[in-house]
């Protein structure tokens, strides 16, 4: 097709312009901000050039490394659990069942609810005194736990909330992928003598490998971007045990008012996650 030169420009121009102005440009200006020492409220002319100081400080700051470690731990545990749980459930529950559409509708609900509402509801559920979870384990005779106040439990709490919200997503994707698997191939494997394990792990799963990869990629990207649920659930506490990097950036910028440092950290972090993506 002979298309005039300006046609792609017409189609892509507006979208690219908006993304450049409102997404790319802020990120770049965050980068620029990282080179200056500046506090909110002071005029920009007072900003002192500090070169790579903020960046190297960020790289040496133990709080940054702790939050990075927390983020990595959170992302890997949550995503692994969601992928395994979602896939296992899909394998167990695939197949035509009447009313599946209704169930699927219910399974979408967790990810459609506002993350802030999710965070608030789980905060209520996890409450040490009147939360439902402690009431439930109380009926089993276990002492009430300080889900949000103990040493390690808050981390478990945020992982549980994330698993609740996103496992259905993985489940739905896997069910859809499995529905497209040609059952003739599975039957052929069975005829050839493969048992359930072999036909599942050596035949079925490789056939949906690209869907698994996409689900894994989407979940990983989003796990690193989590902020709102944790903001409401624990706000990084107690101490900084659940302070993932997004929250650390937010706190540095808006609570400590150290915008230059926050910008530096955030740029480092984005650059780092870019490298992870690029290496795939």
């Amino acid at each position: 097709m002979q298309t005039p030169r300006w046609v792609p420009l017409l189609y892509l121009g507006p979208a690219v312009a908006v993304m450049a102005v409102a997404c790319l440009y802020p990120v770049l200006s965050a980068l620029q901000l990282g080179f200056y020492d500046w506090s909110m409220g002071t005029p920009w002319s007072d900003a002192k050039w500090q070169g790579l100081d903020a960046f190297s400080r960020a790289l040496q700051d133990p709080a940054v490394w702790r939050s990075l470690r927390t983020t990595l731990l959170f992302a890997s545990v949550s995503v692994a659990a969601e992928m395994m749980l979602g896939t296992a459930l899909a394998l167990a529950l695939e197949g035509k069942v009447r009313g599946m559409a209704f169930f699927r509708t219910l399974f979408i609900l967790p990810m459609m609810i506002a993350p802030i509402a999710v965070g608030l509801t789980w905060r209520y559920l996890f409450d040490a005194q009147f939360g439902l979870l402690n009431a439930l384990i109380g009926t089993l005779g276990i002492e009430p736990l300080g889900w949000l106040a103990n040493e390690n439990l808050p981390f478990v709490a945020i992982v549980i909330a994330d698993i609740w919200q996103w496992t259905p997503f993985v489940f739905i994707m896997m069910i859809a992928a499995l529905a497209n698997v040609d059952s003739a191939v599975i039957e052929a494997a069975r005829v050839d003598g493969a048992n359930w394990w072999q036909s599942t792990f050596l035949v079925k799963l490789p056939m949906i490998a690209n869907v698994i990869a996409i689900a894994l990629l989407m979940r990983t990207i989003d796990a690193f971007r989590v902020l709102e649920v944790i903001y409401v659930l624990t706000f990084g506490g107690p101490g900084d045990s659940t302070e993932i990097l997004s929250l650390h950036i937010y706190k540095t910028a808006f609570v400590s008012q150290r915008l230059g440092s926050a910008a530096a950290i955030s740029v480092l972090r984005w650059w780092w996650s870019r490298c992870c993506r690029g290496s795939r």
Partner: protein
Amino acid sequence: MSTANQRPPLVVAPHYGALVFLALCCIAPIVVMFATSLKLQTQIFNTGIEFIFTPTLQNYRDVLNESGFDRYLTNSLTVGVVSTAITLVLGCMAAYGLARFRFAGRKTIAYTTLLLRTVPLAVLAVPVFIWNQAGLVNSLGGLILLYVAVNLPFTIWLLYGFILQVPIELEEAAAIDGCGPVQVFCKVVLPLIKPGLAAASIFTFRIAWNEFILALVLIDCATRTLPVAASLYITDIGVAWGKIMALGSLIAIPPLIFTFIAARQIITGLTAGAVKG
């Protein structure tokens, strides 16, 4: 489908049982949120599980009577609808451009778009907040612009997959019949990617409607949206649980409606790019 997918009747009951159990797990917190919104503060602080209680609408009355509620609702609706509309228009055009045209810089744009998908909102919050203080972005328009920019990568990615499934022969036939390139796009391609458009609009609206952090950073009293208003109930004294759950339930209504009406579109949208056929 061959017989390999049919289950013997003996297996069906546990199958349903498992599905029911999972469904209950999914909706349990949501039900809790809703139930709590119907309780008075004293009932909420009651330890132990109480399934039977006298519901009260007091929390909803308080929330709806809050002085700013109408404003917050209007703001949220405006931001949600407008940003969704703009994102759809720009997104489908861009997806079409990426899918059908070859031009210099195509790979760069595609790659950058994908990259922007990974930007955490906290990274955007800092510079945008500064612009806000400088008076540059202090309005709903700024928030809308941000939401469009943040949602475009995903929308483009989603619609790109749908457009690729439209056979190019259809477009060529239309071109031969005398349609200009724009007409080919509007009259041939757009109707065929309706499920994708539906899914994209639902996702975009959901993000714009539910979003909290950027709205928190960017707005003031006049432009406050509903999710931010909900966070105001978390005070230093304590959390007004009843009211917050009531507001949370109200905020959840549009996504709930979308879910029940358009579940199929949502799932199609989620899986279309990934699952071929």
